[in-house]
């Protein structure tokens, strides 16, 4: 997972696939999701339940917590923002793990 998180291009692609699979967006492919398009409302058009599903998926996969809607609004602004958010949070999580170890 470290390798994917540290490679922004790979992470973008991974996140797109994660969204497609988690939300069962069968008619959408990775190419249909723009790195900078909003994930909610006029972008991919995701709704509140979709947000909750993604929060759980991100926590399970990256061990990164999106606390509430305030954090979520920034994180879910686009694929690019989500990648930036995960890279920052994942990094600090790994550091705290090695500090504890």
């Amino acid at each position: 997972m470290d390798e994917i998180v540290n490679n922004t291009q790979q992470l973008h692609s991974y996140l797109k696939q994660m969204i497609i699979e988690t939300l069962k967006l069968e008619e959408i492919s990775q190419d249909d999701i723009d790195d900078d398009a909003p994930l909610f409302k006029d972008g991919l058009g995701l709704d509140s339940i979709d947000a909750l599903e993604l929060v759980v998926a991100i926590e399970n996969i990256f061990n990164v917590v999106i606390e509430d809607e305030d954090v979520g609004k920034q994180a879910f602004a686009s694929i690019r923002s989500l990648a930036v958010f995960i890279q920052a949070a994942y990094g600090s999580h790994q550091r705290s793990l090695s500090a504890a170890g």
Partner: protein
Amino acid sequence: MKWLDTEETVRFNEVDTYGIAWYGHYIAWFDVGRMALLKEFNLRPQDMISLGYMAPVVDLKCTYKHPARCGDVVLIRTTVVKPEIAALIFRFEINREPDRTLLARGETTQVLMTVENKMLYRLQGELKQRVETMLAHFSG
């Protein structure tokens, strides 16, 4: 799976031109069941508000199997399922007494928000405690 049961009698003003209970009333019956269940765990809408939260319904499903007629006694069975996400999911069965013919099945999903309209991604504090008590009761 445990259920909480309540009863209603189909009223004259609840039947449609076909002489059967209008489909929309089933949703009101779901609410009768949900309110009775929520009351047991101090999670009624007024309790939610006093804790600083709201739980609006964002999804509703209802499948109809058999009709109900004026004067029929309907048994409303309600349960709650443990969701993976921060939401409340209730399931319902409407049966006709006394033979318990299944009339309809349904499900509602509610998200949780603060009274300031901010969505919760995880439950906390007193709300979490009450919801967990409710879930434990129905999963046991």
